[in-house]
């Protein structure tokens, strides 16, 4: 989860990293009750990068200018994203700009300290001079000193920047972050350092033990009711399906990320176009049981069949402990659900009998696991098509799409 700049600065301030005096601005009128002295910088608070070049940062030296600037920035999309909040910040005289970061490197499986003596808006220049130090054992400030020396700093600045990196690292560790970045860390002629801009990414898997961080998520909030209405075993399925091919007519549903991708690849290799691919896996969740897959399967089919563009849903389930006959029971249960309450208004007594005898998307079901014959039998009474071989399931799916083309 990415944080906005003002949220990152709050963490910096709490960690003892020097940040300019700042104030969160929710509407231009907030600038009338500004508590920081002019001149100020007014900065768009967006997740996308590049706001400086796009006019998302403006200077103002009085209230009138500041309110005008705020109006402009509130209405200026940065790469398509409009800010909900602005940041007003005291100006700091810059003599030198440094780049600093702590990032988790998944390849070497260690945190890495990054530093460049050429920080600022031109990232490429920063990169050209980037130094790095791998924190291979438990952190101690000497790792930070090692980096600062490699950056070519000396004297009082060496100690000041080391102190900032040490605090960044503690923050990284204490809050389970994927990234802490300060760019620039400004240095003035007096040798004082100040974090003028920063980026923090929190690790999604660890958010559960950092409720204060999780509460900073400005992008979620939708779909909460949808999740609550789900059975517990299906609570974590996505609310919105991501689109693979906007012209696609196939929905792919499989269990496990690798298997879902492999199934999607096969569809594409055969010339098919998947609209959505949904992974309903989750067999390594400590709190889940194998039969929870059934709930996720029903919910997943519901999600995919909501999109009328999907003509065929390909279900590919490689079942571990759960017998295939349980999987097909869930499919049969989904197919027998009432189509919708709206349809039953004219004849309410028929509601239960209105089943998905002809579901809008055709269903191709391919399963691997035990009790395969029972599974095939139980699907024989439904419109779903059972295929044992994966390559044949792909062929079947594509031929159904062609048949259903107008």
């Amino acid at each position, binding site marked *: 989860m990415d944080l906005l700049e003002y949220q990152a600065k709050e963490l910096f301030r709490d960690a003892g990293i020097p940040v300019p005096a700042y104030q969160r601005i929710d509407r231009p009128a907030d600038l009338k009750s500004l508590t920081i002295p002019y001149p100020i910088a007014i900065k768009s608070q967006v997740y*996308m*990068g*590049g706001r400086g070049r796009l006019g998302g940062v403006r200077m103002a030296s009085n209230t009138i200018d500041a309110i005008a600037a705020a109006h402009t920035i509130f209405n200026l999309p940065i790469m398509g994203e409009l800010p909900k909040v602005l940041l007003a910040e005291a100006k700091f005289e810059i003599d030198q700009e440094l780049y600093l*970061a702590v*990032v*988790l490197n*998944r*390849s070497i499986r*260690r*945190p890495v300290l*990054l530093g*460049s003596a050429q920080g600022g808006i031109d*990232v490429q220049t*920063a*990169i050209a001079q*980037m130094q*790095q130090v791998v924190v*291979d054992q*438990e952190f101690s400030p000497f790792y930070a000193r090692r980096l600062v020396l490699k950056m070519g700093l000396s004297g009082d600045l060496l100690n000041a920047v080391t102190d900032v990196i040490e605090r960044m690292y503690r923050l990284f560790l204490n809050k*389970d972050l*994927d*990234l802490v*970045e300060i*760019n620039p860390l400004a240095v003035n002629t007096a040798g004082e350092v100040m974090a003028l801009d920063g*980026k923090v*990414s929190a690790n999604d*898997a*660890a958010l559960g*033990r950092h409720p204060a961080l999780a509460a900073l998520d400005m992008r979620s909030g939708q779909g909460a009711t949808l999740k609550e209405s789900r059975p517990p075993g299906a609570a974590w399925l996505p609310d919105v399906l991501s689109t*693979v091919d906007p012209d696609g007519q196939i929905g792919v549903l*499989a*269990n*496990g*990320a*690798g*298997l879902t*991708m*492999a199934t*999607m*690849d096969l569809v*594409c*290799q055969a010339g098919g176009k*998947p609209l959505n691919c949904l992974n309903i*896996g989750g*067999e*390594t*969740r*400590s*709190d*889940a*049981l*194998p039969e929870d897959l059934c709930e996720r399967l029903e919910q997943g089919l519901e999600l995919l069949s909501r999109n009328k563009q999907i003509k065929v849903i390909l279900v590919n389930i*490689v079942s*571990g*402990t759960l017998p295939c006959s349980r999987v097909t029971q869930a499919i049969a249960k989904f197919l027998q659900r009432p189509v919708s309450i709206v349809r039953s208004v004219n004849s309410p007594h028929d509601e239960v009998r209105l089943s998905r005898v002809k579901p809008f998307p055709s269903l191709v079901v391919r399963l*691997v*696991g*035990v009790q395969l014959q029972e599974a095939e039998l139980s699907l024989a009474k439904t419109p779903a098509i059972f295929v044992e071989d*994966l*390559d044949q399931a792909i062929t079947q799916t594509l031929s159904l799409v062609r048949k259903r083309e107008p």
Partner: protein
Amino acid sequence: MNFTATNTVIIQGITEPLGACYAPLMQAYGTTVVAGISSGNGGRSLAGIPVFDMVEQALSSVGAIDTSVIFSPPYAALDAALEAIAAGVRTIILVSQGVPPLDMVHLIRKAEATETLIVGPNSPGIIVPHQLLLGIHPPELYKPGSVGILSRNGTLTYEVAWSLSQAGIGQSIAVSIGDDAIVGSTLPQWLQMLDEDDQTDAIVLVGEIGGDSEELAAHYIAEAIDKPVIAYIAGRSAPRGRRMGHAGAIIESQATDFGPDIGTAESKITALKRAGVPVAERPSEIPEIVRKLLKHPLKKVS
């Protein structure tokens, strides 16, 4: 590599839903499950498996422990693993997904210092067909033989095992190192172990997009692996992920030698082919390629 039915195994988190479900299955498959660990449940038993509050208590009661399979909830996994290491356990399988990466960094430092092998997290573990189940692989899809399967995923691994079994090609072992960003053991580590394993004649590497594990594996195969390796990579058609526009992400990809395309299917397939590894287009091609490489006579499906 010593994964046989004589291995003594404990199950930490045996009272978690997943642990309670798989402990009896592991035992039924022939795995020597000597104890379960669940604090607050000491003195009870589950499917005939005695439960202890701590690993060290089990140690004094059941003797030396080779392996721990951990089903503890993700935020308790690090503690469980450290507890096992403190009790002298040197092989640890982490099944649960969602272990915070910095917990893994902590655990990996400890594992390196104590020469402990960590598999996972977010992994179905290890299966040696007809010998040993350390995790949640579905045994029905495997049959004994001489092909080692090495992967990062769960159900796709089973798919590949099933297609091999159906073609009459058995497996010496299947191990998934796990699908989280930071995992305890690496593909090169396991390639080396399988290369040295007498039961394994060929290795099937089942990879997927993301990270640089397969690229590193390709380099390692070219340098150090003598046995034939066959690969399959899932995610060729996946839409390109959003690139983070900050220097940290850019420098992270530039820090390795693989260029900006690192993590894509093309990058992995190119690296593997350059290392002389045949890459199957689809899972069903794998048995054919394995058979050619082993010059195996066609075996009938039993």
